[in-house]
């Protein structure tokens, strides 16, 4: 069953179209990624679903309810972590959880959340004294304290160090494992690839594609490379070998510089190329296959790399 259904959603600010009739649905129990560069309407979409903004057109249903008309009932069932959100400096960790728990009819026991999110030792610490990672974990715990069926997490690892990011990823998987549907807004490819069951790729207010990360990567057939060094002076003639590799299906280019060979192609050409090497008893070293990433898929789908 779809937890969230968005159809033909439109929004513009001061005549500038931010969202152009986008449609997607989020299934129960999945981590759904909303991926795209800043300013492509990701946060606007999520804020409309959360009921913080009104759409200009289209319909949104969350758990079968309208985010504006049924806002009061819906807010009991939805947990939100907003981008750029903070708490009062002098608020203690337990007070924040206790306070937010009191907002909901059926909250979770916040002491459990304290343990789950590794904040037991920070229980009496004030918000301003927490580390970046601890603040982020508290903000996520607050999004879950109402015992929501859907949690929205917006750019939650921005500003965290690599270790804290990895740790946060594990916790997001835990949220899904407890049966909460997660909508994850991100501009980090690695994060989306690691966490999401399905991803909507946003590009200039439209959705370029929706698929699993693996499906997106395979779907675009992005070109990738393999490199290796052939030991010279053996029985194999490098020139003949290059020709054999060039004939492998999927291979689009082969470049040889002395013993160093670079093969470019699409699909699963690398397996076939290693087969050719083995059959010809070529002694190969420093074999490297560049893994295709979501980055490649993203660039192919939107016509530009994410960083730009």
């Amino acid at each position, binding site marked *: 069953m779809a937890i969230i259904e968005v159809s033909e959603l439109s929004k513009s600010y001061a005549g500038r179209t931010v969202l152009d009739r986008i449609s997607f649905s989020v299934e129960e129990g999945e981590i759904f990624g909303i991926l795209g560069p800043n300013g492509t309407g990701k946060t606007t979409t999520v804020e409309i679903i*959360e*009921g*913080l903004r009104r759409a200009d057109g289209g319909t949104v249903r969350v758990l079968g309810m309208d985010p504006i008309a049924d806002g*009061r009932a819906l*807010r*009991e069932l*939805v947990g*939100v972590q*907003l981008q*750029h*959100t*903070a*708490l*009062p400096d*002098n*608020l203690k960790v337990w*007070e924040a959880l*206790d*306070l*937010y728990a*009191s*907002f*909901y*009819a059926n909250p979770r026991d916040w002491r459990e959340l304290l343990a789950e999110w590794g904040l037991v030792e920070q229980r009496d610490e004030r918000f301003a004294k927490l580390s970046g990672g601890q603040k982020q974990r508290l903000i996520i715990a607050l999004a879950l304290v*109402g015992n929501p069926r859907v949690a929205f997490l917006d750019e939650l690892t921005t500003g965290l160090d690599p270790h804290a990011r990895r740790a946060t990823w594990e916790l997001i998987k835990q949220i899904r494992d407890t049966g909460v549907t997660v909508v994850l807004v991100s501009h980090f490819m690695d994060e989306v690839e690691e966490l999401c069951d399905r991803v909507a790729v946003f590009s200039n207010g439209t959705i370029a594609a929706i698929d699993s990360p693996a499906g997106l990567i395979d779907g675009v057939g992005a070109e990738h490379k393999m490199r290796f060094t052939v030991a010279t002076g053996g029985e194999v003639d490098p020139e003949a070998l290059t020709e054999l590799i060039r004939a492998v299906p999927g291979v689009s280019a082969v470049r040889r510089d002395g013993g160093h060979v670079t093969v470019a192609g699409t699909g699963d050409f690398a397996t076939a190329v290693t087969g050719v090497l083995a059959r010809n008893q070529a002694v190969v070293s420093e074999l490297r296959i560049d893994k295709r990433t979501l980055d490649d898929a993203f660039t192919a789908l939107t016509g530009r790399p994410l960083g730009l």
Partner: protein
Amino acid sequence: MTATAKLTVVETKLLVRDPGSMFSFLIPVFILIVFGSGIEPGDTVLLPMTLAISIGLVGLYLMPTALASYREKGILRRLATTPVRPGSLLIVQLLLQFALTLVSCGVLLAVAGTVLGVQLPASVLGFGVVFLLGTASVFAIGLLIAALAPSGRAANGIGVLLYFPMAFLAGLMQPASQMPAIVVRIGEFIPLGAFRQSLEDIWNGGAPDPLLLAVMAVYAVVVSFAAAKFFRWE
């Protein structure tokens, strides 16, 4: 406990932990005690001055800073995603800041009446009316600052910038009797000045000038409306 009750408890704790609120609370008491040692018995000037300082510090500096920083930190927006409306937080904050001025003014009256032997107002009802109007008019300006300031820091700066000229015109820096008559007259058309002069009238055993009461009422209504109109949740 209901959400509103819990919100009130938490906000009270935060108010007590904030050095700014302790500062607004202690400064008027400090001024009262330092200058109180040198006044004549039956003085009717010092206590109205310190009461006006107390309301001015809370209304123009403390309250707008608190509200603007709540918006700046995204706390109001975050509340809008919960079953509790962000308006509840504003109301709780306003009531708490009002309670702070009540406690602060109560302490001033108690210290003045007992330790310093300063004359207390004859008319409790008159004092109550003037106190409410004065607080409402100063808080209205504070709300407008909170509505317009982009951040807590900016609200703090605007509050301080407004407080000092207003305090000067209102006769809170020096007794009005030592100021040029024209300056005192101008000061009566701003809330703090109208408030201090009305209190002095009551302290002297008379009734406050209706014009001064009208000045405070007009500020309270008009400026609050403007604040409500310009207020942004994010």
